[in-house]
């Protein structure tokens, strides 16, 4: 099976300008993936504007110089700088200047300056069944699972090339047959009170990712919709611990009205029965500093905080002064609401550091401590913080994160699974 391009696609690929370069990149990827053709896409979400080195900046600028523009709606994931000026980024020159040039090049290509890993809460919600090309693992899994739009995990460079050409290789999760579940992840053995708690979803997501890897599974035993922020936390944790691009939850996500509809065959290939013991182990596995007596910081907002999550944060802090900072990562969409009525200033007066456009695990923000301890309610931060920041982590609910920040030492409320 080889790739067949339309005459128009071939003509663009033969050009020596930016669109020509983008088309050749999409076509060569399609060949490597074994895709038979390219398909039109409705939108993209681009993770490629995060600075990893000068070559990425030079690539984006070459596209700009070659006259390229995005052909479909394209939102941007986080960059390496806080362009809103809420927090101080410790990235030094010349990297700082190159990171800024990179962000500027993606703006010139016509991408929306959303700078968030939660574009789906910033008004970018493609329709059920539409083909799109999204990057960033949590955005991909939310787009596929919760919105029911169809995307593969588009990596750096290919995301912007798809945006410029308005096309993507036809393979993987764009095909309905590849979206069906082969595994069942049954949580009916857990207590309703645990499933209704905030920590249930990041912990279950982390466990789910470990158990299913890159396979597609369906979660059963959930009664009632857990809320969009819970699904966001589940997907982000699952896409950190495994290569999860799509999950289903019976009665909750749009492609799984019931088990029979979404299973690939009459019977699942395996059923994972989740017990309270398994959950307790998964929850403990999210912490690397279980014996810590004090904490140095709290980080929340991976994925970026929604307005509802900021409201919970304000309610829990209740005007108290924090002993250690809470880094609250978010996007401009939520920041705009927070700026009203002086809410951001009140949070900052308590000791909250609002981080916009970026986050604490992708760029240096928190002080280098050598043996710092970070508390978080995010399964994704728990996964990446030790490697990317050098901080050991403690996983806890948002309520416990806030109490611990007020006291400067870890506090845990028992929530039995």
């Amino acid at each position: 099976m080889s790739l067949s391009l339309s005459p128009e696609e071939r003509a663009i690929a033969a050009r020596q300008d930016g669109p020509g370069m983008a088309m050749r990149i999409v076509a060569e990827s399609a060949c490597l993936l074994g895709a038979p053709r390219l398909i039109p896409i409705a939108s993209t979400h681009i993770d490629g504007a995060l600075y990893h080195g000068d070559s990425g900046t030079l690539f984006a600028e070459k596209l700009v110089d070659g006259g390229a523009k995005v052909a479909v709606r394209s939102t941007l994931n986080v960059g390496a700088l806080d362009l809103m000026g809420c927090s101080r980024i410790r990235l030094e020159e010349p990297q700082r200047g190159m990171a800024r040039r990179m962000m500027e090049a993606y703006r010139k290509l016509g991408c929306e300056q959303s700078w968030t890993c939660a574009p789906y809460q910033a008004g970018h919600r493609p329709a059920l069944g539409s083909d799109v090309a999204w990057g960033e693992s949590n955005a991909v899994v939310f787009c596929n699972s919760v919105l029911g739009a169809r995307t593969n995990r588009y990596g750096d460079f290919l995301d912007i090339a798809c945006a410029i050409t308005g096309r993507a290789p036809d393979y993987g999760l764009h095909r309905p047959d590849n979206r069906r579940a082969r595994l069942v992840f049954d949580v009916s053995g857990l207590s309703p009170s645990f499933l209704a708690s905030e920590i249930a979803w990041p912990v279950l997501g982390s466990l789910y990712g470990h158990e299913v890897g890159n396979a597609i599974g369906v979660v059963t035993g959930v009664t009632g919709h857990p809320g969009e922020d819970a699904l966001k936390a589940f997907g982000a944790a699952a896409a950190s611990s495994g290569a999860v691009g799509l999950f289903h939850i019976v009665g909750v996500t749009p492609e799984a009205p019931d088990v029979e509809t979404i299973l690939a065959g009459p019977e699942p290939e395996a059923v994972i029965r989740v017990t309270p013991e398994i959950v307790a182990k998964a929850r403990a596995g999210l912490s690397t500093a279980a014996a810590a007596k004090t904490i140095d910081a709290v980080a929340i907002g991976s994925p970026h905080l929604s307005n509802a999550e900021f409201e919970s944060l304000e309610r829990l802090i209740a005007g108290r002064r924090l002993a250690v900072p809470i880094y609250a990562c978010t996007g401009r969409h939520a920041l705009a609401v927070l700026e009203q009525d002086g809410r951001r200033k009140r949070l900052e007066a308590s000791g909250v550091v609002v981080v916009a456009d970026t986050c604490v695990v992708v760029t240096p923000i928190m002080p280098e401590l050598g043996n710092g301890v970070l508390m978080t309610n995010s399964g994704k931060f728990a996964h990446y913080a030790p490697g990317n920041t050098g901080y050991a982590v403690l996983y806890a609910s948002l309520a416990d994160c806030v109490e611990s920040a007020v006291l400067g030492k870890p506090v845990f409320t028992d929530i039995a699974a």
Partner: protein
Amino acid sequence: MRAAAEILVPGKAGEGEALVLTAPISFWGGVDPKTGRIADVRHPQHGEVIAGRVLFLPGTIGSSSASAVLMELVHNGRAPAALVLHEPDAILLLGLIVAREMGWETPMAVRLGRDAFETCGGRVRIAEDGALTVSGE
């Protein structure tokens, strides 16, 4: 030993000491883009440098920014002399495809059966047509 390998991404013919990885690797966070040193402390070949070597890869894992790291290695002159994979890895190899579009000289990536990896030690040369020659120690 001689073997005909399928070319996955064309590039410059390469020669170097073989570096056969015994576990899959995540390029982002796993390989230093400035030096080519394997930085993942849990990886069996931790501390080895992939620059200038003929790199035999049993698969990649993790972040989809692997392409960005491989392109950064090419740009910094720290790329492997050639890459040998047992199956195409579209995310990693995109780094070579884009580097070539940038007009930079890129190493070749070829496909070879994984069972042949074990016999590849010492000095390896990959010719422009994908022919792989192992000249021993």
